[in-house]
């Protein structure tokens, strides 16, 4: 009798366990996002080594996350492939909302534009949480250039200008190409390979190895006036709030309709940083993340920490807004843009 009881009890327990686990509702149905994120640490992937702008922003978010949610956020640096490694990793992570990525939108889109074979993500499928610190790029002339004191009109007449840039498939290179197209610079060329970052570019400008450079406003401004003499124009249809003294390109150059199209397409390649989660993360968690990041931007501690590096903080875009922009770009034909810009770049076609 005892034996039978033991067997029946054991079998019942097993059956109950099996039935119970089958009936268990999905995590997001039983646990609220707020509780979920209070109890589980989020890993924020950064595709660069520590210390740069994206990493710095990630660390400020991580510090503020605790205040906003009570939970932990850990920054994980995964440098490699110009950020591709981190993006690939985040895209294929478990879709539980605990792995996020922060990365300049322009960089991910440019990899798509130039069809980099290493991409294992579909950028139009990521779930954007928010888009922060959008900036435009500025064309500036170095102190070492013989053309340092020229006005924009005089600068446009110079034959054989050299613009410094990093990698051929980077945002700097695309901005340089666009500048050459919009200004009609005669026989201008882009000198690639300058930089491991702003430091090399600043030195090349000061030494006169290159005449000018295009880079994001905050980077260019940090080099002024030690390495740069004057910023000629902002590659946008309006002035940058980071440097309102610099005129927009549309103010100083009368653009043809083709040039306007080029500029419009270029502006989709935003250097600002997007935070996103991979496809499959439940909608309630995405919504929670979006609201939390919005709340973080309003925290006094966050505002104080961010202002040393970004004295002016433009309002962020919502996840939905940046997703719309990305979708719009990825659905329109960009061959003409790639062709026009690509003629100044020696990018290997894949």
């Amino acid at each position, binding site marked *: 009798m005892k034996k039978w009881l033991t067997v029946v009890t054991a079998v019942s327990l097993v059956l109950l366990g099996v039935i119970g686990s089958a009936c268990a509702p999905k995590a997001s149905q039983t646990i609220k996002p707020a509780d979920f994120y209070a109890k589980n640490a989020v890993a924020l992937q950064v595709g660069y080594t520590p210390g740069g702008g994206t990493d*710095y922003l990630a660390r400020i978010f991580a*510090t503020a996350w605790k205040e906003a949610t009570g939970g932990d956020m850990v920054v994980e640096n995964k440098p490699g492939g110009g950020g591709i490694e981190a993006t690939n990793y985040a895209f294929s992570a478990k879709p539980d909302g605990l792995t996020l990525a922060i990365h300049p939108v322009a960089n991910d889109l440019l990899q798509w534009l130039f069809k980099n074979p290493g991409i294992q993500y579909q950028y139009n499928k990521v779930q954007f949480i928010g888009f922060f610190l959008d900036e435009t790029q500025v064309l500036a002339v170095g102190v070492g250039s013989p053309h340092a004191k020229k006005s924009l009109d005089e600068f446009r007449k110079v034959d054989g200008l050299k613009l410094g840039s990093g990698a051929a498939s980077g945002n700097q290179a695309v901005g340089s190409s666009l500048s050459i197209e919009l200004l009609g610079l005669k026989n201008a060329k882009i000198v690639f390979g*300058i930089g491991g970052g702003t430091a090399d570019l600043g030195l*090349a400008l000061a030494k006169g190895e290159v005449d000018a450079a295009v880079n994001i406003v905050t980077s260019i401004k940090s080099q002024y006036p*030690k390495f740069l003499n004057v910023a000629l124009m902002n590659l946008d249809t309006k002035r940058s709030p980071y440097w309102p003294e610099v005129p927009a390109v549309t103010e100083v150059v009368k653009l043809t309709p083709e040039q306007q199209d080029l500029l419009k397409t270029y502006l989709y390649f935003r250097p600002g940083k997007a935070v996103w989660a991979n496809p499959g993360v439940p909608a309630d968690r995405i919504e929670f993340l979006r609201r939390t990041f919005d709340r973080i931007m309003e925290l006094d501690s966050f505002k104080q*920490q961010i202002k040393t590096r970004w004295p002016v903080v433009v309002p962020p875009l919502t996840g939905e807004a940046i997703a719309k922009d990305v979708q719009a770009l990825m659905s329109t034909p960009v061959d003409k843009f790639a062709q026009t810009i690509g003629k100044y770049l020696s990018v*290997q076609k894949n």
Partner: protein
Amino acid sequence: MFESNVGQARGSKHRVHRMVEALSEALLLVFGNPGFIVSMAGGALAGLIVGILPGFGTMLAMSLFLPFAFKMSPVTALPFLAALLAVSRTAGSVTSVLLGIPGESVNAASVVDGFPMTKKGEGSRAVGAGIFASGLGGLVTVILSLAIIPLVVPLVMMIRSADMVFLILVGIAFIGVLGRGTMIKGVVSGGIGLLLGFIGFQPMTGASRFTFDSVYLYSGLDLVAVAMGIFAIPEVVALFATGGTIARGAAGPTAMAGVLEGLKDIFRHWWLFLRSSAVGFYIGILPGIGGQAASWVAYGQAKAMSKHPDNFGKGAVEGVIAPESANNACLTGDLLCTLSLGIPGSAAMVLIIAAFYMVGLVPGPDMMTKNLPLSLSLILTTAVGNVLGVVICFFGASRLARIALVPARILMPVISVLIFVGAYAANQRFNDIVVAVVFGAVGLLMVRYGFNRPALLLGFIMAPLFERNVLVALQVGGPLFFVRPIALVAILAIVGLFAWEPVKGLFQRKRQVKRA
């Protein structure tokens, strides 16, 4: 044109007065502020742990500390980092000489002669020479840096991309020609190192080279994994094969006596020490080159100018003094360049700059004008950090030197774990462990067939910088980009290096014929 854009003090008298004032404030900040001292001590301790553990690099430690910097003031966060950087390089020499594993990548050059010294039973002497050379090299160059602050910017601006191409080749040629094995094998090793360094994206075209469509290889091979593999794994295998202990033969002097003997060696070779510190300091001022190159170039010049160059590679104490005095001197130069220009000269300085932002300071051209006292205090902190590092390592050295007497069956598994954890810790990528193993095999083959491992590693380290400068120099200056004074002198130096052995041999043969 450069200076006209920066606020200038009127007259040299005013500048000197301003400097003296700022130095006094800096001294007060460093020695008069308990928070500063405590933070420095904390950084020194962290640097000791980080330096001793191979592969657990300074970069990782600094990035772990960064989130805490938000909540700290400048006088607590920055000295912690500066002391951590200084002491980690000193402590790294201990692992390099005792275990043959570079504690930090900048200590790799010390393995070449330091580890053979340990095998000969002179481990404590090697440790003493390493820690004192490292600490004193940093200290001496701090004094130098305070004197040459106004010259830093002109020194940096003098060197163009074209010059950098040939300066890098001089460094590789030094090691390739003067290292172990034949000249041909040395040059081939350096060349292979350069080729390995080209794996990844080509900076100009964006094309991927030798990546086999692997995202892992897009940014090239990891330095820590390669260094661990090339140097550390062959030593572990040798230990496994021979058994016994690292120290063979006679026990040598007592540990403390040995460490002090190492200190005396620095005074015996004082000119080498000063020269190597100067080399390291100047390389540190030039942005982008880094401590690894500084220590190898210092090693190369030590051998080139030695009366007994054949002793190098077999346990010559000069082979420890030169690279160790250069690597901390390089840090001082690096810090000075970063503060003077307001831009980071190395990866470690990128983190220092980030820390500036985190504590509410905006780094930039004002660091040496408006914020001069704080900048000087950071430079002084590296000096104090160097002294702290020497003191801490000195008292630990005699105990640590006994590692050389631990049986291989106990030591080998521990070292193996440290190697693989170290290779993984830098980027948390499993593939780095695979790379370490592969290069372990490469290192074994190189040892077996007499190829020059340091030349390969230096070529690998310098490849990205070399290529970038070649591309820029060609784009800016055309095919005759090398027609510049500094570049031409460097070319002559390379020709001289290659011609040295054959010419020396010719003269020796002529002398023998004459005697006969």
